[in-house]
């Protein structure tokens, strides 16, 4: 038996770490999986038009679908009309989803439902045929996509694209806006990381070189705005900076600065002052000491700081919403979609934010560890 009570066996160690790991899986990984799942799921149209969904499964997408599809759509719409208020709500939800793909379907679906209800069921199909909207293959293709699984609609819409009936992609009506959101999100996060990288250095050096008590006080002062939270920081900056996207960026970058300062300071402090001092004594210029000694010493801290700042900046929306409501970033669009219950949109945005964030963070952390080894 070892005398060291901290030298645990593998089983004991794994069991002690297990509860937290399981909670991360249940509390973060599973909900995010659910959210990402919703990006390829269609939940608005299929429940409203179950018979049409089955009929369109057989359609090969060439030309117009056969009469059966017209009949089932008429039947589905008649059933919805007969269902009263819940049916009307279902039609409205389905129409909103279809209009996001094909704007003219915003009118066609409720309009057809109204007219087909006025006639007997056997003639309902003819009112459908009479509507020019249902004579276009493009609209039927949109309908087919809206009841399909998996659906690429939300993922494409998040980068401003849509499927064409004849195959291939084209710019969606919201295309420029969607790509501007993503561009602002990623551009802002990248710029914030660079700004933090430059601004963090002097403060990190100060903390790393100070006597223990002063270093603790400085570190706590650096930590304070981080603990205050993004909402408090944004509200505090508002009277000083005013509104605008520049102000929102400044609040974001300054707010995340502690995430860069503290890891860099910790890395420098752990490395100690001996090497840079010896190098300076041996005649290296301050620039050479910085470039050849301190920067490699801080490498792990810099990598961790960059990973933290980049991912946090990518997903922060509070400052952007308060200070620059007219120029939404990807994160604030995600927040708006989540509030509105548009989980397809939210899931697609989450996918486009999550994959780059995890990729960049993983690469940076690997880069940082290689320096330490």
């Amino acid at each position, binding site marked *: 038996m070892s005398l060291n009570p901290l030298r645990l066996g593998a089983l004991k160690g794994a069991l002690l770490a297990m509860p937290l790991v399981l*909670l991360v899986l249940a509390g973060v990984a599973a909900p995010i999986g659910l959210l990402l799942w919703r990006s390829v799921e269609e939940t608005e149209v299929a429940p409203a038009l179950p018979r049409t969904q089955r009929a369109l499964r057989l359609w090969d997408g060439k030309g117009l679908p056969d009469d059966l599809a017209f009949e089932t759509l008429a039947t589905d719409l008649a059933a919805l009309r007969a269902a009263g208020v819940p049916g009307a709500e279902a039609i409205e939800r389905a129409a909103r989803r279809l209009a996001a793909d094909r704007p003219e379907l915003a009118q066609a679906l409720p309009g057809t439902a109204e007219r087909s209800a006025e006639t007997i069921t056997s003639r309902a199909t003819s009112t459908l045929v009479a509507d020019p909207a249902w004579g276009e293959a493009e609209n039927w293709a949109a309908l087919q996509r809206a009841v399909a699984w998996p659906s690429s609609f939300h993922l494409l819409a998040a980068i401003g694209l849509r499927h064409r009936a004849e195959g291939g992609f084209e710019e969606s009506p919201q295309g420029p806006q969607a790509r501007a959101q993503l561009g602002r999100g990623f551009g802002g996060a990248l710029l914030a990381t660079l700004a933090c990288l430059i601004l963090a250095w*002097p403060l990190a050096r100060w903390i790393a070189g100070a006597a223990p008590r002063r270093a603790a006080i400085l570190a706590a002062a650096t930590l304070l705005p981080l603990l205050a939270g*993004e909402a408090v920081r944004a509200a*505090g900056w508002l009277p000083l900076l005013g509104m605008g996207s520049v102000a929102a960026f400044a609040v974001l970058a300054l707010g995340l600065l502690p995430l860069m300062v503290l890891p860099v300071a910790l890395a420098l402090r752990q490395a100690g002052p001996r090497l840079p001092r010896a190098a300076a004594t041996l005649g290296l210029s301050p620039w050479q000491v910085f470039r050849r000694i301190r920067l490699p010493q801080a490498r792990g801290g810099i990598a961790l700081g960059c990973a933290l700042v980049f991912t946090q900046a990518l997903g*922060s929306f509070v400052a952007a919403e308060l200070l620059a409501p007219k120029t939404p970033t990807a994160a604030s669009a995600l927040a708006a979609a989540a509030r509105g219950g548009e989980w397809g949109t939210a899931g697609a945005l989450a996918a486009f934010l999550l994959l780059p964030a995890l990729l960049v963070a993983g690469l940076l952390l690997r880069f940082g560890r290689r320096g330490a080894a």
Partner: protein
Amino acid sequence: MIRLAALLVLLALLAPLPTLLLAGGAADAGEALRNSLLTALPAALASTLLGTAAGIGLQARFLGRGLALALIGLPLLLPPAIPAAALMLAAEHSGHGAGLPGAVLWHMLLGAPLVTAIIWAALRRIDPALFRVAAACGVSPGLAVRRIVWPRLLPAMLLGAGLSFGLSMGESTLAVMSGTGTLPVAVLSGAGSVAAVIWPLLAAVGALVLVLAAGQPRGEAPPPA
């Protein structure tokens, strides 16, 4: 020169906090304070307990340790809007609003990696020779743990608890997204009495500084000025 730049950066970091005190309204923040405390206290407690257990457990080598480390650190490396939206969706699925339980869970998972790292580092600093010395002097293993491990573990746990409490009090992403009335949301809408959010924070961080400064292990070479 570099000190001056550092001072300016520090001032810029702290600038938004005093302006809040000046702009503070006198509106009722009692409800918001209650919500924040109901989130932060359970979150800090849970993250301290789970983080301490994980910090001790990760001292051992076991299969999947790297994966466990990655998962424990994951909440800090996620763009915050994503887990917030995911928790709202999960709450909708389970039939509840994304109220306080979701916030407690999320804040707990944010604080736990910090506690884990602090505990891990504190235990790493213990010289294993101390245990051999204790055994050679005839000290029972239980007493050795009480006298050697505990005095180093306790300040680290306090530091971790203070950090996760402060982090949870300020964390606003989920509350802003789901519209839960916590203190940061009250500050954002300009309705809350601002001193109420600043002072618990200052108190938590003040306690933190003292614990940090007092918890510096004696006998280590002091870092140079």
